[in-house]
């Protein structure tokens, strides 16, 4: 059967984990960069790289702000990112079912 290829933006362990974490938040909720980093156990540089790819694809919204005098960065899935994650989850679920006898 002709399978559509899985979304390459999400289909990489690190970005899948970033996307899944942000998708676990309610719509309209954001997570701070340090909390996301701590949850995923990634280096700041590595996480930034993947976030940039997700942002470039329009899946993640990056908000830079200040808390008092400290700069803070918050991340959230965009509606498009949420849809992409749902479609990806659906696609791998279908693949897994198809792989079974």
């Amino acid at each position, binding site marked *: 059967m002709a399978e559509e290829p899985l979304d390459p933006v999400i*289909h*990489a*362990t*690190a*970005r*899948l*984990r970033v996307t*899944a*974490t942000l*998708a*676990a*938040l*309610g*719509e*309209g*909720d*954001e*997570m*701070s960069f*340090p*909390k996301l980093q701590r*949850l*995923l156990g990634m*280096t700041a*540089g*590595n996480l*930034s*790289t*993947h976030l940039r790819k997700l942002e470039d694809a329009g899946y993640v919204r990056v908000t830079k702000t200040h808390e008092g005098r400290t700069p803070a960065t*918050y991340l*959230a899935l965009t509606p498009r990112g*949420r849809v992409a*994650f*749902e479609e*990806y*989850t*659906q696609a*791998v*679920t279908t*693949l*897994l*079912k198809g*792989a079974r006898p």
Partner: protein
Amino acid sequence: MSAPDRPDDVGPLDPAASLRVIHETQERARAASEPDARLLFAIWGVAWLGGYLALWASARATGALSTGPAYAAFGVAILAAVVVTAVHSIRRTAGTRGLSARQGATYGWSWFLGFVAQAAIVGGLASAGAPPEVVALAANGIACVVVGLMYLAGAIAFDDRGLLVIGVWILVVAAGATLAGVPGTFLLMALAGGGGFLLMAAVEHAALHRRRRAATLAGLAGHAGSGRG
């Protein structure tokens, strides 16, 4: 500046591995950003059970109202539960902002204001000359009404069935405990109120286990959607 992709970041994922990653990651994300209902129900169950049993035992022993030491024990139990609840909720939700955080903050403040009003009403009744027994009954009954209505507000705000059940139950306890009179009111608060919280802790625990098992069985993760637990 930024590190290149590590090999395991871009390595091929088979569908089962993908679903496992999604499931584990989301489980971890929820555990790190939402308060644990089991812990909160359990701590309040223990506080009510212990605190109100102390008041009941002391009221029964003296044949009238509870003694100072019994009220002190009750106060310590409730204060400990308040502190655990506040610290746990604030730590879990730290590092997130948005709609849920605003709802959570409003919810937390509503609890606090409800009990400030309860204390003022009880104080007002006492200074207006209400007999000690009436004051004790009003304190219990009004506290229960605040708790029951706050749980119902939580059920609406967070679309949570567990909160709906316990909210209705605590309102029933409010009525029953006031009709029971002293000292029966304290026993009812301990067993029906505190026992109700402990039962909810057990129910939430069982539900979490069931969800986890179902997710593991259904192709390792099933469809791990983005809904809240």
